[in-house]
């Protein structure tokens, strides 16, 4: 059943370092995406590029309490999730630039970031396609009898695709340590949630699966997200039970770089309303300032620190070479694949 956890002003009992660390991640996430937008405008980044601006509280709240050996998997709006797992910002930027120093050697791009060495399992661009993979990771955890967990992020539109039911059913049936986090940013491209889903709160669908708990929460409140995910992680780690969290959030920018911030499917007023009253970073800062956890000077130095990381990552990406022609045919298979170029005499 969907339940709201009580909004606590106790800052979840987190110490200053932990709170500042969360804020730092949120600012890094926001500024990284802004920088991606700029790099897209100047033509360094191509293809589909989906920015996470406005949704930072979800990934930051959900991923800061994870252990290093846990797994994370998400859809194509994936830069910030990758960063939070510990991926190198320079290698992400280089990937977006289509360079060999990119995490996927320039062959995956924005929608397909991967770094299994830090537990980041992608970066998946087929809507709903990664949910069954999350179930497989959960199955492997049980198979090996470890106490890791897998956190799987999904968009609101995924609640309506067949893979959603197949995956949640199997996660509950086999009692797998998977936490599903719906990032309900109110739209799947231009389709408002209520125009696609015949249900008000998507997390209510958890009640269709025995042993699964559902929560619908304020996804603009990073501490509410963190408090909820901690309960879900404990259920997964200790009791091998899956959960479904729906974090209500909002994307401040267009669906991808080609979609204007507002226009046909949502109004300028709606967007600015969210930006001025429900910006997750502003809300968190206000709270931390009020509780005297941080000062204006702290904020300044965080911004400086983040700016340096971004400047370095762009520098790193620019300095990396583009892939060699031979890379077209590498990494398709392990080992030799006889005759792979046989039907290609021209290239």
């Amino acid at each position, binding site marked *: 059943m969907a339940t709201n956890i009580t909004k606590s002003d106790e800052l979840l009992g987190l110490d200053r370092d932990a709170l500042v660390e969360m804020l730092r991640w949120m600012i890094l996430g926001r500024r990284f995406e802004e920088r991606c937008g700029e790099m897209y405008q100047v033509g360094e980044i191509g293809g589909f590029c989906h920015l996470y601006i406005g949704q930072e509280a979800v990934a930051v709240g959900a991923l800061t309490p994870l252990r290093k050996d846990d797994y994370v998997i998400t859809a194509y709006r994936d830069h910030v999730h990758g960063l939070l797992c510990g991926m190198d910002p320079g290698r992400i930027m280089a990937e977006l630039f289509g360079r060999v120093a990119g*995490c*996927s050697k320039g*062959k995956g791009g924005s929608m397909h970031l991967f770094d299994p060495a830090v537990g980041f399992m992608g970066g998946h661009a087929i809507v709903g396609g990664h949910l*069954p993979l999350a179930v497989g990771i959960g199955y*492997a955890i049980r*198979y090996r009898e470890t106490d890791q967990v897998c956190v799987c992020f999904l968009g609101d539109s995924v609640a309506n695709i067949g893979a959603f039911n197949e995956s949640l059913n199997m996660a509950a049936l086999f009692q797998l340590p998977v936490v599903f986090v719906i990032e309900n940013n109110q739209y799947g491209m231009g389709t408002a949630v209520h125009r696609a889903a015949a249900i008000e709160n998507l997390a209510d669908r958890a009640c269709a699966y025995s042993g699964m708990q559902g929560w619908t929460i304020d996804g603009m409140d990073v501490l509410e997200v963190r408090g909820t995910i901690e309960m879900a992680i404990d259920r997964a780690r200790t009791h091998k039970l899956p959960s479904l969290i729906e974090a209500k959030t909002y994307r401040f920018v267009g669906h991808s770089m080609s979609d204007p911030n507002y226009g046909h499917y949502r109004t300028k007023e709606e967007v600015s309303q969210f930006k001025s009253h429900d910006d997750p970073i502003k809300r968190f800062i206000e709270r931390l300032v009020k509780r005297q956890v941080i000062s204006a000077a702290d904020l300044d130095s965080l911004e400086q620190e983040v700016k340096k990381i971004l400047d370095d990552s762009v520098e790193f990406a620019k300095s990396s070479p583009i892939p060699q022609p031979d890379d077209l045919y590498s990494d398709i*298979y392990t080992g030799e*694949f006889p005759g792979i170029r046989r039907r290609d005499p021209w290239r």
Partner: protein
Amino acid sequence: MALITYRDALNQALREEMRRDPDIFLIGEEVGAYQGAYKVSRGLLEEFGEWRVRDMPIAELGFTGLGVGAAMVGLRPIVEYMTWSFALLAIDGIVNAAAKLRYMSGGQFKMPITFRGPSGAANQLAATHSQALEAWYAHVPGLKVVAPATARDAKGLLKSAIRDENPVVFLEGELLYGMKAEVPEDEDFTLPLGVSDVKRPGDDVTIVVHSRPVHSALRATEILEREDGISAELIDPRTLRPMDIDTILDSVRRTNRCVIVEEGWPFCGIGAQIVDDIQREAFDYLDAPVARVTGADAPHPYAGNLEQLHFPQAEYIVKAARRVCYRE
């Protein structure tokens, strides 16, 4: 050697590999308690337990992805489809995930997964249950595709498929499960992927054929020998991707004539690719246009007589061989 069925040969391959490597597990509909819809997994649940032999809900997309996800973190899943026609619901997991993850990640993943199950027509199961879709999978870079025609090939190739670090689509013949052959009992017996098998040597015409029609083609070679004095060489590529095209080309350069047979539809079929390879690499050796014998370019009918008409029968293979030998 022991004379066993294709079904039992597959069962042996599964059992031996699962005993050898604890990371291997089998999932699919009815693979456990029911002992396999076609009894290929008989006795495995009892021996290996439910985490290694797991019955799945009827959710092809879901359990295909379950396998792919487990392979991403290093396990070696075997995913059984009750038939390959049902795997159409799972093609996203096979084509968009399994085949692409290594490439899209710049080589960060291995994908040691085997997708297997019966393919092709059975007896009067009509259009949704009778399809040979190997050309679809053979089209996709990142996949390997295997289609054994005999019990011996089935065992040796399945063991190699399971040991491979890449995703392998393994198409069994629904009508071959009961067919017997001599099969090595040695646990180390494997057959390499990507190597054609000359199932019958000959001098006058090359017949290329895989999966169940191999047996119709063998009958055709006997008729050709007996009635026409034509000595046909029968080559079974066994692996359709990567295909050992050199063995086929070497044969065509000797016989100068070729017939290509498959159960699937003609348009964009496996044979169409082989014809292209031959015309590019052995054009000057051809004494006649290459002929193809395929399933009819129609959905598979229910009525017994029409179904027989749909198959690439021995009779048509004989006709085609006579045509390319100018003996009509």
